[in-house]
């Protein structure tokens, strides 16, 4: 029964994620924060219920396997965020915490799969949706990386006083930075959705062992890095050279993730 509460909690947390995706896409503090925070509270209460119930049923501290630990971890992170938020009004930390708590809780809830595939067409369609989301995400990421490279070249020219001729055919620095930021945001939205789709698919496919798959681990790690970059950019005003370098590092990680996933199409049933 406890896992049901946890799943409902994940749904509540997903509103927080939605709020963050909107914030990242539209680059302003969304009015949805109040709603998202309410959902976040609800999610926490539900998760607390789930944990208490779980403890009651197993009569032990619920950190026996990876999934239990992750779920617990998500709960504590959420708790710490609330304390920080109440104490310091650090609202923009939510950009980092909401997606993180959501994904951790999601992973925690996927320890016990809902059930086997009811039909193979749904399984394939699901996988294709995951692949399509990743592709769009990667396309945006590649655009970000190309823009970042241009940015670095242009920035170096300006710093070394080699600019000002008017002969340059490259866009202005600010335009490149904006393009970088937009492409990064769009990429983040798609990759996040892809991670959600991919994780749930893998858990149904492989049961309890899905999380041990190195492909999953590496994807989640890459997504984590992505989240950090988006968060730094959104809240710390990371831009320009630093952001460009980070994005290029991110593309490196994504390339590894990509390499790990070649052959995914072979899993399609036809």
């Amino acid at each position, binding site marked *: 029964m406890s896992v049901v509460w946890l799943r409902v909690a994940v749904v509540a947390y997903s509103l927080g994620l939605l709020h963050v995706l909107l914030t990242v896409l539209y680059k302003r503090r969304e009015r949805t924060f109040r709603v998202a925070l309410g959902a976040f509270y609800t999610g926490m209460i539900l998760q607390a219920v789930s944990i208490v119930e779980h403890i009651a049923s197993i009569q032990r501290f619920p950190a026996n396997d990876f999934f239990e630990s992750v779920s617990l971890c998500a709960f504590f992170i959420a708790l710490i965020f609330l304390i920080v938020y109440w104490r310091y009004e650090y609202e923009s930390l939510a950009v980092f915490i909401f997606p993180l708590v959501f994904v951790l809780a999601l992973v925690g809830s996927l320890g016990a799969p809902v059930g086997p595939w009811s039909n193979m067409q749904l399984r394939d369609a699901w996988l294709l949706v995951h692949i399509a989301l990743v592709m769009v995400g990667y396309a945006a990421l590649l655009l970000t990386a190309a823009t970042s490279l241009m940015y670095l070249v242009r920035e170096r020219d300006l710093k070394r*006083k080699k600019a*000002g001729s008017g002969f340059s055919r490259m866009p*202005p*620095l600010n335009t490149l930075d904006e393009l970088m930021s937009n492409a990064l945001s769009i990429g983040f939205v798609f990759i996040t959705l892809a991670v959600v789709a991919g994780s749930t698919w893998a858990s149904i496919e492989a049961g309890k062992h899905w999380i041990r798959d190195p492909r999953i681990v590496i994807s989640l790690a890459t997504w984590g890095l992505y989240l950090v970059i988006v968060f730094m950019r959104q809240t710390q005003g990371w831009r320009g050279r630093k952001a460009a370098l980070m994005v290029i590092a991110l593309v490196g990680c994504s390339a590894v993730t990509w390499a790990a996933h070649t052959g995914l199409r072979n899993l399609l049933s036809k």
Partner: protein
Amino acid sequence: MRLLITGLNHKTAPVEVRERMAYDPASLGPALNDLRARGVSEGIILSTCNRVEIAVASEDGCDARPAVDRFLSESRKVRLDDIAAHLYHHEDEQAIRHLFRVASSLDSMMVGEPQILGQIKAAYASAKAFGTVGGFLEMVLMRAFGVAKRVRSETGIGESAVSVSYAAVELAREIFGTLDGKSVMIVGAGKMSELAARHLHNSGVTGIRVTNRTAERAREMAALFDGTIVEYDRFIDTLPEIDIVIASSAAPHYLLNKSQMRRVIEARRNRPVFLIDIAVPRNIDPAVNELDNVFLYDIDDLQRVVERNVGERNKRAEQAERIVAEEVERMVARIKAREIAPTIVSLQDQLEQLRLAEIARVRGKLGELTPKQEEAIEALTRGIINKVAHGHISEMRRLAGQPEGIEIVDAIRRVFRLED
């Protein structure tokens, strides 16, 4: 038709002479009419601060030079002897080359500057309005506009900034893209910073703040750009809102150091900032440039940008000269071909008359002919004429573009007894 350009410019005449020779817009109309009355077919007057030029077209065999010289001296009320040393005369092909070079801004004080083309267009417009141009000169002028456009787009000669203040604007554009709505702070209200601010203001910058040790001067400058005044001792507090800083204060020490700037850029959440330090001694610690998203240019940096751009312009000017040479050649060939056209037409006419006369002569002897036979005779005679004439005509067209062409064309006219 013959073309003559008489004029003087910044290379041949000092400003005292140029200002005496200049025509203001009001005097242009009467002057054009006066010029026309002196026996030229067409005329146009170009008067700018760097040059006064008169282009006239006249009939073959008529030397317009003395008439134009007299016109210049009389209309400007100067003795011809006083200006003769400053005047240059270009005729025909030379005149076309000169016109093309002037229009393409290759003869300008700053090669590639864009105003001259507009000035020539204005001169053309007023000549057109007074009816002193139409036909030959107009055709050459139209081509000059085309050449100028071609030079501009193919060489990109006018694209770079060749003054310090404009280089600053160009750099700001490379950082920010559009300057609409960007804010500027002027630290130290001097002549140089005013010039840079004016360029920025014209490029769409809105919020201009001025700070100066003496508030009076700050107020004057702020008034020029609808700007606001910032207290001199506390201008750094305002910097986080500012995208572009122009520093030109006479302070003997740095007004802005690296740690101050670090705080500013943090407060700006790393939005880029462009610092222009045109003061000597410098107002901004050069180490500031090491900070990310801060771009600092001092007067030497800007000067170097300008030098590099001037060098680039000169390189492109060579390319432009090649374009002009090619266009002059094409124009001359076109004019010659135009001159030979009447000869070709009269040759064709004469041969046609001959043909018709011959047909009329023998037609009676042939008796009844079917329409088909009639047609055949037409085709036969026409074919002979065309075959005979074709070689001559293409040879005449070819020769027209060459120096000895006129004599050969004359010879052909005599051979065929062509009347003018």
